[in-house]
């Protein structure tokens, strides 16, 4: 990466407007051959707009793009591909019924004849080069998300990409898959001179790059060599202020168990086992972190405790009262709040106002109901208080939740569920997809509740978060609890191995 190198990609003074909104304001950056260059910024900072401009999906209003020193005009993705730019979108664009090989070949046709044999040889060679065991003849629908991503990457390389844009590539991957992704793209860069533009908001990934460019609110804040900046400096560049990193202090005093699960199992109608004899106790003022690769029973565990699923055997006690078999409203009334995994699908009514979403579930209870009617002044008053307390960015209690950003929508869910959680709070992925600023807010809120004596069950994909918040960590694999340890007694690597189904070293 000597200074004399001609940049693979040089963007200068790129500007893109959407109506009033300046999505990209005079952005300049360069990516060198063999470099892994991170594009860092919060949601709405303009990362996706910039990458869409670079792949020919949007046309910039001003500015120019050079590839290997040659100015190019990007009118469509076809122009971008011809210029050697490949892109892997956050949500894959594959044909599920086609095989991996067919997906790689889609849109590559030159002439009428499809020379499958030659194409297969070329794709095989690419996979062999990077030790990828891709099953080329299986339909993409049968591949895991990690494998699908490799199909996308191989496709970009097969099309001759010399610059690869990866948009949040690890968002859907397990830790093991993420680690492999990084190993391979490192080799692609180091050994074969591929230039990689990596869009992410995960700090751990940023720190493995060569250089990082930070955007905030559509503007270029700066580019730095990763080795020369600290994590905190980058966060400050990204957010525009310092962030306290919430961390739980060790507990003191005796703790009363508030939630107890004894041998809880859950099978569905087809006999599939989602939970297998899960037992644990959760005490007042404790955060129990649930670690596991998505789909290993975490969501089923949360929904079973909340009364949304009925366990096939075992028992659940909340503050001494047996609650399995109770309905969700009855369990909530005992002082349980539940922040569901997918807030848009399970937690919010999009056409309702903030005030109405905060009311959801309590519409029959006084003081929100007076006789036959809803007590609208009281409902609005409470909503105004919540909006202020949680710093929800909205025009007021009547603002529709559909129009809120993900972070503000999550604050609404959190406000509602915290109000119910006088004893136990279930938090399933409460910070997924949120900006660091909001994550900080959510995390300090959880710690405040913990200090107030709430028992919190917290699942997160971000092991870093679990390690900074949880008192104990429980690892789930295949619906079973494979480990339940005090946080100081374990480390990230051990938990990662356990999640992958390997015995602790």
């Amino acid at each position, binding site marked *: 990466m000597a200074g004399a190198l001609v940049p693979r990609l040089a963007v200068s003074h790129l500007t893109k407007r959407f109506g009033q909104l300046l999505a990209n304001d005079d952005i300049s950056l360069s990516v060198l051959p063999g470099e892994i260059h991170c594009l860092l910024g919060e949601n709405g900072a303009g990362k996706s707009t910039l990458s869409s401009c670079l792949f020919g999906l949007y046309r910039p209003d001003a500015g120019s793009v050079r590839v290997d020193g040659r100015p190019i005009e990007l009118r469509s993705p076809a122009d971008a591909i011809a210029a050697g730019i490949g892109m892997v979108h956050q949500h894959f664009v594959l044909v599920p019924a086609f095989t991996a090989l067919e997906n790689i070949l889609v849109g590559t046709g030159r002439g009428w004849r499809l020379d499958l044999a030659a194409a297969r040889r070329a794709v095989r060679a690419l996979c062999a080069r990077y030790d990828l065991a891709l099953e080329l003849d299986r339909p993409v629908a049968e591949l895991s998300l990690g494998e699908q991503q490799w199909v996308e990457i191989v496709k970009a390389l097969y099309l001759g990409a010399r610059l690869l844009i990866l948009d949040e590539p690890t968002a859907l991957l397990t830790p093991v898959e993420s680690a492999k992704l990084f190993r391979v793209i490192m080799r692609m860069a180091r050994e074969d001179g591929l230039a990689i533009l990596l869009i992410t908001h995960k700090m751990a990934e940023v720190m493995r790059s060569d250089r990082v460019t930070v955007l905030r609110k559509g503007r270029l804040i700066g580019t730095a060599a990763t080795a020369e900046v600290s994590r905190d400096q980058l966060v400050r560049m990204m957010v525009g202020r310092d962030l306290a990193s919430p961390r739980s202090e060790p507990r003191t005093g005796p703790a009363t168990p508030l939630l107890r699960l004894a041998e809880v199992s859950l099978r569905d109608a087809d006999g599939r086992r989602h939970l297998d004899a899960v037992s644990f106790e959760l005490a007042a003022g404790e955060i129990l972190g649930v670690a596991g690769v998505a789909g290993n029973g975490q969501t089923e565990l949360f929904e079973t405790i*909340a009364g*949304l699923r009925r366990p096939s055997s075992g028992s659940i006690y909340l503050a001494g009262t047996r609650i399995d078999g109770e309905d969700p*409203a009855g*369990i909530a009334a005992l002082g349980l709040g539940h922040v569901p995994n997918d807030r848009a699908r399970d937690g919010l009514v999009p*056409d309702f106002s903030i005030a*109405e979403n905060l009311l*959801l579930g309590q519409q029959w209870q006084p003081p929100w*109901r007076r006789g036959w009617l*809803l007590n609208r002044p009281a409902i609005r008053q409470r909503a105004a208080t919540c909006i202020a307390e949680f710093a929800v960015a909205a025009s007021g209690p009547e603002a529709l939740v559909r129009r809120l950003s993900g972070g503000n929508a999550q604050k609404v869910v959190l406000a509602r569920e915290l109000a119910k959680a006088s004893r136990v709070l279930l938090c399933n992925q409460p910070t997924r997809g949120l900006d660091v600023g909001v994550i900080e807010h959510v995390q300090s809120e959880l710690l405040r509740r913990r200090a107030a004596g709430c028992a919190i069950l917290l699942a997160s994909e971000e092991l870093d978060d679990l390690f900074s918040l949880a008192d104990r960590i429980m690892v789930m694999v295949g619906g079973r609890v494979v480990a339940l340890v005090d946080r100081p007694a374990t480390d990230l690597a051990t938990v990662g191995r356990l999640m992958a189904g390997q015995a602790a070293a």
Partner: protein
Amino acid sequence: MSWPGHFGWTLVRRPAGGLASLAAAFTLAALATGLIGGLLFLAAGAAPAQAFAALAKGAFGSWRAVSETLVKATPLIFTGLATALAFRARLWNIGAEGQVFAGAIVAYGCSLQLAGLSPWLQVPALLTAAMLGGALYGALAGLLKVLGRVDEVISTVMLNYIIVFGLSLLLLHGPWSEAGGFFEQSAKIDPGAALPKLVTGLRVHLGFVLALLMAVLVGFLIERTPLGFEIRAAGSNLRALAFQGARIGRLILVVMALSGALAGLAGASELLGVQQRLKAGTLVGYGYTGIIIAILGQLRPLGIVLAALLFGALVNGATLMQIQTGVPSALIYALQAIVLLAFLIARAATGWRLRRLAHAG
């Protein structure tokens, strides 16, 4: 949200729910209906301007004409409200048609028992009976959905067929066919069961006032009560409502019953207010037209009342139009369908606007 532009223009989504876009949609729909309707009248051999004038005169030209328009609108307000209540909860109740019949049948059956009693007793009792009949028939579809996971569209349509033909059977050969009569109809009801007229000499009756009252009540129910809150929540995201512990099965039953009760009132209002007897054929179509009314009225009570008045005026004015210009009055049903389609298209079109792209040099 925007589509990538071509030729320097792009389509941009308008913020939904704007009153301006709604007004624009109505204006566009009215213009389109006038144009297409005019062509239809022309094809039927009449001068469009004359036909529309006769239509308007027939609908509003005299107190009698206004009264008849209100009479025609009354059952449509009930069925429009019935449909809207269910649709707001995303329950696709296509069964207002059958629930109208259920209301009329139960009311008629009860009227045979109560004949001779005071009108002060008979009228409220029969209206209640009609609501119960409609409610039970609606709840039956709800029960099938809750217990057997039967899609309500299928079950309500099937139940419609069953009760329409069931009534024919009762009236043709059954105990209710008028003694010595040749028509498919029952004997007249007891005079004490008839809904009082609002104005002497005109046919508009108590049912119209009741329909307006129900529009107000339904508006209150949906916007101001905990039950309405659940109905609206179910219509937007049922899963989130279930996650908060609401009893979804019970909600479905209650909504289907309330929807059926409103439709049942349409049956009672026609039986006791207009026909004074059960007659197969005279109740047909109110339920299905109610779906159009509900959609035109944007599932809101005020909109439903206005849409029902429009349709009542069209049907009522058509007779004079036929007499004066020779345009077959049946064309009016084509015009109703055109109103709906024009409105839906205009509504979709006014949701977007064209914007010129700012261009890179």
